[in-house]
Each structure stands twice: as C-alpha cells, then as structure tokens.
C-alpha cells in the first residue's frame, strides 16, 4: 500500500511524488503552471523560521507555498510502494 499524506505533513528533507490536488482556485492553477502537477517529484526543503510557509523543490527550482495550500496537496513518499 502506498503511503500517501498531505504535503504539509511531509518531514523536512523528504522526497515524494504529488498524487492529487484540487483543480480549482487561483493558488492551484498557479501551482500547476509553475510545474507542480500530479506525478511531479517534490522535496520539502525547509519551513520558514516560524513554521510557515514551506519551501519545496520541484523541477530543479525552489518554490514557497503556505501550509494552508499544502494541506490540499496529497503526496506519496518516494519508495513508499
């Protein structure tokens, strides 16, 4: 069974694959357009000093998003098959 969890729950440094997230809302369209799509590999680099927002690495670059958005992104831990 694949271990899926929310992106906001991913431990720092963990690598995962995005499984699904909502199709609607400006945040999610922009995330898609910046290359964050179901199937994309994502690494949680760190959180900001106060715990929010998060910094992730996708397609070779670093991106920030808030926990409130990351809660809606379902990921699967790499090697979690």
């Amino acid at each position, binding site marked *: 069974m694949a271990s899926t969890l929310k992106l906001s729950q991913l431990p720092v440094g963990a690598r995962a694959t995005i499984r699904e997230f909502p199709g609607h*809302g400006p945040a999610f369209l922009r995330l898609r357009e910046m290359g964050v799509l179901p199937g994309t590999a994502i690494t949680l680099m760190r959180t900001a*000093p106060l715990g929010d927002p998060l*910094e992730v690495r996708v397609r070779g670059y670093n991106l*920030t998003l808030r926990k409130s958005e990351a809660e809606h992104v379902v990921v699967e831990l790499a090697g979690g098959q």
Partner: protein
Amino acid sequence: MHLSGARVMTEFVQKPAGPGRSPVYALVGNPNCGKSTLFNALTGLKQKVGNYPGVTVEKKIGTTYSQHGRPITVIDLPGTYSLAARSPDEAIVRDVLFGRRADIAQPDRIICIVDTTNLERNLYLVHQVLDLGRPVILVLNMMDLATNAGLDLRVARLEHELGIPVIPCEAVNSKGVLELRLAMSRADLPLPRHRWDIPAPIAPAVAELQASLVENDGKQPLIARAEALLLLTDQNPVRVAGSMPLSERTSAILAGWKKRWEGEGVDWSGTLVKSRYDAITRLCAEVVQRAASTGPGASDRIDSVVVHPLWGWLVLGAIMTVLFLSIFTLAEYPMNWIDAQVATLGAWVKGVMPPGDLRDLITDGAIAGVGGVVVFLPQILILFFFLGLLESTGYMARAAFIMDRLMSRVGLNGKSFIPLLSSYACAIPGIMATRTIEDTKDRLVTILVAPLMSCSARLPVYLLMIAALLPGDRVSVGAKVGLMLLMYALGTFGAFGFAWLFKKYLLKGEPPLMIMELPPYRLPRMKDVLFHMLERAGLFLRRAGTIILGISIVLWFLTAYPRHPGSATPQEQIAHSFAGTAGRVLEPVIKPLGFDWRIGIGLVTSFAAREVFVSSMAVVFSVDHFEGGKHADITPLRTALKAAIWPDGRPLFTPLVCLTLMIYYVFAMQCMSTVVVVKRETNSWRWPLFQTAYMTGTAWLVCFVVFQGGRTLGF
C-alpha cells in the same frame, strides 16, 4: 483543431517589414531570468519609462539597432510565469501580446528569454507564447551557469524542434547579444512550428471558441486559437483598465462549455496545463543530453543559514541594521549639503534682486520648494540602491519568506515587509517599492498604512517635543529614548492595526498567496543596481517633483499673504497671513487637543513636510537666528516654547501637550510628497484623500483621548 505544422513554414513566413517601419519586438520571460539585464544590454540608455494608462504598471520601451543601423523598438514587458494573469503586471503582458490594448499596437515579433538552469518551468511561458502566431526568438540566458551545473543542451535540435532561432546567451557579460541583434535584424523570421496535442475532450471547445473569436471578435485565426486556449486555462482572469472585453457570443460559448464540463467532472484547465507540461517534458527529453545536477547547491547551503530558525533572524536583523545605519548616516551629508546649497542660493538671489514679492516668490517659494523635493533624493537613492541589491542577490525573496507568517496575521503576505520597513526611513521609496506586490488589494493596503511608520522627517519634531517635555540634563537619557521608542511603537502598531482593519472590512479579498520562487543566490551586477536606482530617483523627480513644487509655492503664499501693513517682524507677518488665519480658524477644532492657533499654524505649514513644524515654531515664537536643519540648536526654541502661554496665563506647552503633539505627528498625514506619490501610485485622488482623512482623523481621536484623559488624571 490542431496546428498543422507542415504548412506553417511555407505559407506563414513573415513578410519583410516595409521600408518605413521596422518590426516592434516584445521581450517576455519569467521573473528572475535576467530579462532586465538583457533589455539594458540591448537598449543601453535608450529607454523610455512610463505607465500604461489607467494602471500602475511600468511601460518600458527601448530602442536597439539592427546590424545595418536601423532602429528597432523593443517593449520590455513585466516578468510573468504564465499568460493566465494573476496581477495587473501579468494582465498587461497578456493584453499587449494578444493585441487587446488600444494604447499599444500588438508587437510584430516576440523575444522569449529563459533561465537555462531552470528550463522546464521557463518553457511553460514560451509554450504559451509559441501559440500566438508571431515569429519568436528564444534566448537561452545563463548558459554559463547551466553548463557549470552540468547541463548539456543540443541547441540546434531545439531550434529544429521549435522551428525558431534559439540563441545561447549570458546577458550579464553581454555574450550572445550580438547574435540576438543579428537575428532581430532578419527581414524574415519563421513562425514557430511546434506541435502539441490538445486533449481530446477539450479540442472541440478550442475549435468552437476559435471560430467565434475570428467571427465575433475580429481576431486572426492563429491568435484566436491561442486566445481560446488561454480562456480555457484561466479560471478567474484579472482585468485591468484598457483591455478590451470579449464579445457576448464568445463569452456564452465559453460559459456553455464550462457548465458542461463541470457536469461531467472534466478538469479542463488542469488538463490543458498538464498537456503543455507533457509536451515540454518530451521536448526536454529530446534536447537535454545531460541534466543539470540537482543536488543541494551553493544556494541551499547559504539558505541553511539565512533562513535558519535562529540565524535567519540574526541575518535579517543585521541586514536591516546596516540598511538603516547607512540611510541615517550616509544620507545626512548630502542632505545637509543640499540644505546648505539651497540656503546659499536663496541668500544669493535675495542679495542680487531688489526686495519685493517676486524676490520672495523665487527665494521662499520656488527655491525652498525645489529644495524640499531634492532633499529627499539622498534617502531615496540609498534606499533603492539597497533594495536593488537585495532584489538582485535573491535575498528579498528570503526576507518575504521569513516574514510571511507575521504579515499573514494582519492579512498581508511577506512581500509587504520590505516596503513597510523602508517606510521607517521615508514613506516615499517605501510606497514606490510596493510595486513588487502582485495582489492589487494587498498593495493598496500596504500603501495606505506605510506612512504610519515613523519616518526620519518626524525625528526633528519628536526631538523638539522631547526636549520641551523633559528639559534639562537631569532627565536620564533612558527616559528620552523610551519616549522616542514609544512613538515608533505607536506608529508600528497603528500600521498593523489598520492593515488588519482594511483587509478585513475595506479591501476584502482572498487571502494572499505565497507562491513565490526562491531564486538561487547570485552576485549582483552593479551596473543594473545603479541603473535601477537612478531610474527610480528620476521617476520620483518627474512624477512628484512638479506637484510638490506647486504645493510648496501655495504654502509659501499662505504664510506671505496678505501682507502685514507697514514693516513687520516675521512673527507679526505669519500671524497676519492666511496661515495665521487658518490657525485661528482651526483653533476650536484643535483646542480639545490642547493646541492653540499658533500650534495650528505649525500644523498647516508642516503639511509641506513634518520637519517644517520646527522652523515654523521658531518663526511663530520669534526665535531669532534660528538656523533650522537637523543639527540646529533647539535650546533657544525650547526656552521660547516653555515661555509660551495661553491668553489666561496658563503655560501652552505643558508636558501633556508636548506628548499629545508628538502623538499627533505619529498618526497625521503631514506630508504632501507622500500624498502626491500615493496619487501617482494608485492613479486617483481617491486613495490619497482617504488616506489623509483616516490618518489625520485617527491622529485627532487619539490625541483627544490622550489629552482629555491625561487632564482628567491631573497631568
């Protein structure tokens, strides 16, 4: 309907531009891809910076020359990740490229610049631009960095796959700029012939919308197809003044399809984005021989300190301390110099011209007014130099990242932090720096509260009042510093309180996004930083200077007229003037705050700038030989203030009144330059007037409570 690639090459080759007109190029690219550097390298100083009518988005147009010396116009569009716009800046990119604006013609050709170290995401925008049916030149910027990271790219293959010229480039070293210029000089440029598959469920909708756009909106077939694709990608398009709306028929078709898909559970926009990325991934598989190493690079190592839970705050604090120390120490010399030069010039004119109204208009009105504008320049220059440095190194994004959580408490995002912080030095550059905030409402809220941060012009007022409040040397420095800090804290809390209030009730909006790229750290390029700094300063002078000069002359007129009959002292003159009358008219309003009409004169005249209050008080209370300026000896003035009394003999400047007056200056909008800059940045008088009203209203209310409360308590 799919683009039939084979036909494209033979039939749609762009006709050579006519003899009278060279092609107009638009330059587009993601943020942080080196677009401005390339634009500067192409056009040098031949740039015109203006505004798109009705929106505060910068319009930058430059001229470069073809290999045969013919001028070529280049429009530098704001950086964007997508044509599905989320901010006014991005909406301008979309509208210009789609030829939706009446004030600027659709560019003939497009230069797309990408950061080669980050190819996939950068190609998304390129992919959208390729659909537009215009000749495109692709510039692969930062080729050196990509090669160093291990990337091996088959440029010729990429050129072949896209059917357009592809030019490797290092804009910072001007490498590749010559090749780009040669490509731009070509009389004929091919149209892109990149093919990608529009997902089957969406293809019929694209075809129908395209046909309707051709028929009902007068679009050309290729651009109509691109527009149809964008309409289906964008979920909630941002509209800006000056963009043409869709025809009713096309809107109806779009709404029909969306309704149908919603019923069927088709995620049309997500599917379209995904198929573009699929095409990009396939393309990259063809052209990238060896991918760049994606391990933790130097940037990640720097970030492990710079955004560290503990060190991060220290670094932020250190950078901000250096910034403020340099503003306060470095700016002081040129500011004093400017003050001195203005005074010398005024004295010289007074000496050579016969006394009279014209002489006074020139010296006390015009020269003093110009001085009042120019004196801001050192601070603005230094602040923008630092902001440019922070931006081009990549630290700005980190500061926003660190501060986002705190800013989100009042409904803003981390990007408001730097503009608000800059406002402690001077609200003008702070407000000008809000242009980096994409969300219109967030930007407006930041502009509205920025002047509440205690700027350097309040310092002379605070210092004078503290001196009057706590006279003599017996008082500990601690009490003085504590009082000063209290004023800064009041302003800061005020700013955040009002930001919260405005976001909650006045400018309600979706919570701002914090989807932001953290670009790799890069060494700043001094030429670009200095260029940016001079550009900002020039904008301030051109846009605000003339109005500020006008208001200065009006304020001078108010103190100089009507003339006191006979020979009058400056004190008698100002009491007799319109400003004196205004003070007396104001007295009933400000009496509940403990202020009399003479303080009222100071409030009126210091609308020019807060520090003018000090020199006005010197005139009103007849302190001879008062020099003014930051280092003026305020002891005689303090003594005069202490001696000032109400007609019934009560002292005027009681400690409570001094405190109230300081609080008044914390909140009141006493700065015409800020008002003018806000007008320029919001494109209407509505917001600066609202801002003046709410700030000064708050000042009155708080002062009323403090003064009346203090009196009740027996102070």
